[in-house]
């Protein structure tokens, strides 16, 4: 017996305010960058972001979506990716560090080593190959400490590195949209969203989600999706979006606690080097 939960009006107003800001940022990105792409990992955040792009461009997604495929993703994610891409008419591009994979790269060589090779370097190779100058990503400030210090429009230098000591000022909806040749800008329209906002928005807009986020009978679900060997499921009996939201309202466990690369200083080192 399930009751359809109505999102209350204050929450709707809050979600619409977040949506308006993200849509504005997406349109700024589209206006200023000829060579623009959006990363899509099929997780809840980047899928909500993809939905926001359809909002911003009235049902269209006028730039390619990029999946950085480590080859270790959970198979259901790939099925979901191809199905949604077809239904929504997406221009989907796949990036992969083939050399590293041929060399047998995997997490047992060290999680930061593996993430650097299969994600950071794969992304850098991909961007260089396609000469993208603007990359839209679905990171959020509440996920992790260094992401809390990001800008909406965040420049990367020629090596793809993030100079967090010298970030551009950002105020009054004016963003860094001009940059020297050889550098690129990362665009983060979801910075102000929290995990629960994402889920409430998914419910409000009825966005199709991959079922790995729900308990499918074994009393576990994923709270954050990544590579199969480095992503742990959590104990949870939440089977629907409503139940996920109720669970999030009472939990005090960090969202990325199941993500192995976050241990110690992992994320700061990874992100300085160009990780998402």
């Amino acid at each position, binding site marked *: 017996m399930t009751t359809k939960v109505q999102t*209350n009006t204050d929450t709707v107003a809050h979600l619409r305010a977040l949506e*308006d800001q993200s849509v504005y940022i997406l349109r700024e990105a589209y206006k200023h960058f000829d060579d623009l792409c959006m990363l899509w990992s099929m997780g809840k955040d980047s899928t909500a972001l993809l939905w926001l792009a359809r909002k*911003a461009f009235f049902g269209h997604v006028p730039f390619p979506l990029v999946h950085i495929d480590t080859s270790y993703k959970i198979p259901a994610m790939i099925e979901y990716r191809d199905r949604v891409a077809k239904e929504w008419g997406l221009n989907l591009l796949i990036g992969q560090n083939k050399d590293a994979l041929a060399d047998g790269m995997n997490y047992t060589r060290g999680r930061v080593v593996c993430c650097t090779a299969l994600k950071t370097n794969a992304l850098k190779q991909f961007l260089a190959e396609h000469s993208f100058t603007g990359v839209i990503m679905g990171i959020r*400030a*509440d996920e992790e400490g260094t992401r*809390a210090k990001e*800008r909406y429009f965040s420049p990367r230098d020629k090596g793809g590195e993030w100079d967090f000591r010298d970030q551009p000022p950002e105020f*009054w909806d004016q963003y860094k949209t001009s940059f020297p040749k050889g550098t690129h800008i990362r665009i983060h329209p979801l910075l102000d969203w929290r995990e629960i906002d994402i889920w409430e928005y998914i419910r409000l807009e009825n966005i199709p989600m991959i079922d790995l986020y729900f308990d499918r009978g074994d009393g576990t679900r994923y709270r954050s999706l990544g590579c199969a060997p480095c992503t742990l499921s959590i104990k949870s009996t939440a089977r629907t979006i409503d139940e996920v939201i109720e669970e999030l309202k009472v939990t005090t466990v960090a969202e990325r606690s199941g993500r192995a690369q976050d241990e110690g200083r992992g994320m700061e080192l990874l992100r300085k080097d160009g990780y998402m």
Partner: protein
Amino acid sequence: MVVATATEHLSIAIVGHVDHGKSTLLGRLYADTGSLPDGKLEKVQAICRQQGKEFEYAFLFDAFLEEQEQGITIDTARTFFSWQNRRYIIIDAPGHKEFLKNMVSGAARADAAILVIDAAEGVQEQSKRHGYLLSLLGIRQIAVVVNKMDLVDYREDVYRKVEAEYRAFLASINVTPERFVPASARMGENITEPSQRMPWFSGPTILDTLALFRMDAAPDQAPLRFPLQDVFKFDARRILAGRIAAGTLTVGDRLVFSPSNKTARVRSIEAFNVDPLPLQAVAGQSIGVTLDEQIFVERGEIASHEATLPLVGRTFRGNVFWMGKRPLTTEGEYVLRLSTGEAPCRVTTVHRIIDATELGYVDPKGVVNRNEVAELTIQTRYPIAFDPYSSLATTGRFVLVDEYDVAGGGIITEAVSDEFADLREEARRRDLSWVQGDVGSELRADHYGHRAALVVISGGVPSHQAALARRLESVLVGDGRHAYLLDPENLRQGLDADMLSGDRQESIRRFGEVARLLLDTGQIVICPMRGLLDEDYHAVQTLVHPVPMLVVQVGQTGSEPSSEADIHVSGSDPIEESCGKIMEEMRSRSLLAYALNEKRRFRYANYSI
């Protein structure tokens, strides 16, 4: 099932001088309200043990290794915190002078601010500078926390002294703080519970102080300002997208776009996954509208209602804070951005520098250094739409871009009238009452393969100049374009026959109006002009605006103005080559070819799966 209770969302910035305890206050607030995720406290404590140093609450949010090692916040952290049906985004801004631009980035998005002052050190340089910046950024709710009361034995007289000094400072910049609160973040005094150590204080705790901040009411009653962000044509709909900066927009409204003075009615408000489509939109919303007429309008224009138009001009006075790597000077070329509008600009006068520490006025010498605030007069290369900050905040503030970087921000205190104000008013009145046929400029451009444009050819030997103008007309027409040579000489014996010779202003005005008529037919109008002054260019430009004007400067004669030229060609070059150069420039400015929405290289139906 329980439905979530009503919630409000409020952003609060924590600012103040370096080392006065902002991050500690934040860390303590989270720890004492049980707002930290499980394991966060233990994780940071473990890192401290590992590195052999004492745990501090500040480490909870200073995520960068460098920040913890140096014990300072480098960049703004945004953290999320819920308390009693209110959700807070707390913005911890750095207090070090070096990172002022990070403080501005953080504070600018706040609804309210807590300014922290060390009770022992008292009011310091950044305490004042931050207070001043908060007022420039438009943050009106400010609470002042006198922190580190443990270092002064929780003495009331010390607290009162700091309060009196800082209150006087705020009063001098017309800021009235909400309240002053004593606390010790390190010892947890007066954070979530009233302090036993300070029985003399009966006011709110830090937690109560947060609860006492109010949400700003949305300025829906303000006049409509809808800055155009982009024009989309992904399907049959031609959608004008943007975010409403102020006021309310309703289907059926007649919109006036400034500075182009184009008008049309709103036919629909478009949206994805919304049924039925909305009939009204208000400030803050990112929307898209279709119009009843296909008018040509571009990013940067501001749509409003005819009764409440924004100002349009090139010159205004403002207060600017400068964060650039190099100083702001009257020699420099900058780009001014105001909402979605953008224009090259110069600083014509630095009136005075406002010294943040003393708030005295320093002799400007035409230069504004990093971290200084100054009163300036700014002139843009072409007219922009704006409001004085005091009447509308969102369209009354701007940023200055130096090379690649946003380097300054400012508010417009007043418009400065220039010699073209009358012509601008004439153009606006004329355009608003213009009787338009069913064929709009966009339709003409679609059919002709180019937009209307005015090409002014100036300088050079008269015979060469005339030959170039004639040749350009021939080449364009030969290429299938609609071009017409308009020599000012043709006006002199006809339209201007009634005029006294020497009334330069009137003859320029008449020339501009004739050009405006021809341009409205969608043609490329070519004018060889001799002996023009800078102000003549601006007068003509004001009258033909928003049609682009391209100034071709032939050779170097010295007496002709070259600062206004868009293209330089040499008088000794073959004419054919000069024509090619001019056409190339027209192509690069999307004047030739099917210019509208052509920029994208991306193809939609390109599935690579």
